[in-house]
C-alpha cells in the first residue's frame, strides 16, 4: 500500500476529481489523505512551496526542487 503525495502535480483541470486523472491500475493499493482545505489559489501557492522545497518523482515543473538545498 502506498500513499499518494504531491497528488496535484498532474492537475489538468480544476473540476476533475483526482481519481479520474489516474488509471485504475495506478490507483490500486493507494490511499489519498487530504491534509488541508482551501481556495484553489491558496492551495496552489502551498503546493508550489512544497514542490520547490520537497519535490516528488512526478514533479516535473521547472521550479521543482529550487529551494531544496
Amino acid at each position, binding site marked *: *500500500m502506498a500513499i499518494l503525495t504531491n497528488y496535484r502535480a498532474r492537475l489538468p483541470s480544476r473540476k476533475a*476529481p*483526482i*481519481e479520474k486523472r489516474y*488509471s*485504475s*491500475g495506478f*490507483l*490500486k*493499493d*493507494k*490511499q*489519498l*489523505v*487530504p*491534509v*488541508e*482545505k482551501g481556495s484553489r489559489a491558496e492551495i496552489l501557492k502551498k503546493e508550489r512551496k512544497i514542490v520547490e522545497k520537497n519535490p516528488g518523482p512526478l514533479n516535473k515543473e521547472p521550479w521543482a526542487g529550487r529551494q531544496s538545498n
Partner: protein
Amino acid sequence: MIGYYLNSGDQKGADMFNPYIWGKHGLDTLMEKQLHKTYGKDMKLLLILYYLEGQFSSYLPVQPQLGNYMKSSKDIRVSVGVTQAMFHNRNEFERREFIVDSTLNAIKLVKERLSKKKPDIDFDKLIHDVQEIASEYLKFPEPYATN
C-alpha cells in the same frame, strides 16, 4: 483481480480503515495470497474505491456507484461511500462485515452491469472464492487492527 483504493477524509480515518484492507490480516492481503490471478480474459481489475467521511472529505456517494468498463485495460471501478455511522461508530467485527459486504456487493453490481455483454468472466467462482476468504477474514480474533 480485486483491488482497493482509499480516499480518506483525514489521517485518523485512514489509520482506522487501513488495517481492515492492507493490514497483516486485511482482506486485500488475504486475497492477494489466495485469490486466482484471473477469472476470465475480460477482467483484469475490479477496483473498489472507498471514500471515507472525515474532516476534509468532499465526495461521499450515498449508493455504490459503478464506473464504465474500460475495454482497453479490462477494468472497472466501484465507488463506495463510507460514513461514520457505517464504519467509524461500529465495532471491529461489524467493520469487517462492512468490508466484506461492500466487496461482494461491488462484484454483484459489476456482474449485473456487464451481464448483457456476456463477458468472459467467471463471476460465480469469484464470488464463491471471495466468500471463502471472507469467512476466514471474519474469524481472526480481536483486537483485529493490532494482530
